[in-house]
């Protein structure tokens, strides 16, 4: 059946198609993954601004207190409730501490908590969602029940109770928040896994001799990066807000360690007389949350290699 004539025919057919493809101009420059991702990301100017703003804020939060001549708990005698001045750009607080160094240190702590929460929720949520979605059956039943249990728990109430017993520290606050937030990501990831495990490329991977672990982590997870990262960035925003709320209620980070929330709490009585001192830390909360959300949206696009926006 592989006589000489048909072999020649086939070589010719292949060459003909090759030429046609070349002519069609299908020669998209082979760009690296990183380059393509960045190209797609650049198409969202708001997100680019958000990214730089977040980087600037992060730098300010970490470097600012270190450069400042004051520390966040240093009481400057005779200087309570100062207005903004050159030596104290944000003014001083009721007992005479430099407010700028307090807001920046508070930002540092709030951001640390938010990032730890985002990493923890993403990790727990992804693993539980992936295992539940991939294996299905009783594994899924047990894990989904657990996920739903955590979802229906009235979060703020638990936070109040738990925070009284274990709260106060930076990391304990982060862990408590993470334990309440992971089910959202777990549900998203589970859905994605159920969707992807039926896809033919997963069958193809099994047919190629890949093991379940490899199929889950090498073949399916990369397909879910987009939604996972979007949810992680949304979690950063949400965590900043919840941490502030908790600290505002006196159940999060305990003074004298500052956080954006407990600084707002310090000034809640002065909202009429000295509004800038409440609004400043509040502004940072809003900025971080907004930037994180814009960033997440753009990343969803940029991390999807099938998205055509970059071309």
């Amino acid at each position, binding site marked *: 059946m*592989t006589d000489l004539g048909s072999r020649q025919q086939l070589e010719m057919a292949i060459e003909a198609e090759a030429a046609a493809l*070349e002519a069609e101009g*299908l020669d998209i420059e082979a760009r690296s993954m990183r380059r393509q991702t960045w190209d797609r990301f650049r198409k969202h100017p708001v997100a680019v601004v958000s990214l730089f703003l977040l980087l600037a804020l992060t730098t300010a939060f970490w470097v600012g207190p270190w450069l400042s001549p004051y520390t966040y708990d240093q009481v400057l005698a005779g200087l309570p409730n100062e207005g903004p001045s050159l030596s104290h750009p944000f003014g001083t607080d009721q007992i005479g501490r430099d407010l700028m160094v307090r807001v920046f240190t508070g930002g540092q702590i709030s951001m640390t908590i938010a990032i730890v929460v985002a990493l923890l929720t993403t990790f727990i949520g992804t693993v539980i969602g992936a295992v539940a979605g991939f294996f299905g059956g009783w594994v899924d039943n047990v894990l989904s029940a657990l996920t739903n249990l955590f979802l229906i728990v009235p979060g703020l109430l638990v936070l109040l109770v738990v925070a009284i017993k274990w709260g106060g520290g930076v990391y304990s606050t982060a862990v408590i928040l993470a334990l309440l937030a992971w089910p959202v990501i777990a549900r998203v990831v589970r859905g994605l896994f159920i969707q992807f495990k039926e896809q033919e490329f997963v069958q*193809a991977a099994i047919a*190629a*001799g890949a093991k379940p672990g490899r199929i889950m982590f090498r073949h399916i997870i990369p*397909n879910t990066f987009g939604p996972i990262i979007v949810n992680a960035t949304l979690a950063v925003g949400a965590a900043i807000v919840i941490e502030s709320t908790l600290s505002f209620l006196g159940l999060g980070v305990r003074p004298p360690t500052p956080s954006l929330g407990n600084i707002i709490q310090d000034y809640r009585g002065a909202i009429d007389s000295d509004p800038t001192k409440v609004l400043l830390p509040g502004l940072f909360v809003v900025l971080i949350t907004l930037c994180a959300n814009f960033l997440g949206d753009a990343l969803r696009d940029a991390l999807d*290699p099938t998205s055509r926006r970059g071309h």
Partner: protein
Amino acid sequence: MTAPLLSVKDLSVTFRSDDGDLTAVRGMSFDVMPGEVLAVVGESGSGKSVTSLAIMGLLPRSARVSGSAMFDGRELIGADLKQLRKIRGKDIAMIFQDPMTALNPVFTIGSQIVEAITLHNDMSDKAAWERATELLNLVGIPDPKRRVKLYPHEYSGGMRQRAMIAMAMANEPKLLIADEPTTALDVTIQAQVLQVIRKAQAVTGAAMVLITHDLGVVAGLADRVNVMYAGAVFESGDIDDIFYRTANPYTLGLLGSIPILTARVSDKLTPIPGAPPNLRRLPEGCPFRPRCVFATEVCHGSEPDLMAVNGGRHRSRCYHIDKVAEARAGSTV
């Protein structure tokens, strides 16, 4: 005589469902010799894809598989996963129907071929990438050095299927299973991809099970043909037996449904009347009886066995082989 590479005996597959059990494959038996191309032909629901999935162990857990599939001295049905993984991709490779969904969208074509290679070979990354490029060249992808770094969505449909074929060839398997390899492609591309499959098969010397509903594909590639209906083989024979010495009414019906370039305008296509049977409730006797123009009283009794035609390897599941042969001789097809 050499031993068969794949020997399937009495393979049955039943799916449990709420409306009762559905038997998709009923006691299939066939052999594939080394280097041979066996086409499995039939309508949708005839059990042709399920057969190949059962051999690969890719059926969902709800499927009950019985019978035997000996591959190169190893039993595949009920084999443990560890053993199956060693065979899959290395000794038996699969070409899927739709290359868009069978390739992972987030990895480059190259990295997917490299994975197929390194799963079964101790090979440096560099060597594997070189081999991947070489494979793409072999299946006729122009400028493979650059295209190896592209993503599936940057390939055309035909190129994707070529890449799938390259991946299947990666470990020089002894058996290729191609499940409707051209169905998802444009008609103009189909012929080219078939040529590539033929080349891949010739280069690796692999045997092939070619699943298709397209008799044109069969004519171009196969050495032997199994015609399936209602989960069983209805006719089995060399390609010339099937096309020129047809001995089964169902095969005759399939052949009558293909347009022929040399036919006169007045020659109408003759479709097979009716629809494939409900696999949950097969008709009594021969499952093809309700649609068969040759059916008589005897067809109501019990299902005919696969009977030898003229003594050779050509076999047909029909009580009226002689009448079919007569009709075959008289027709213009």
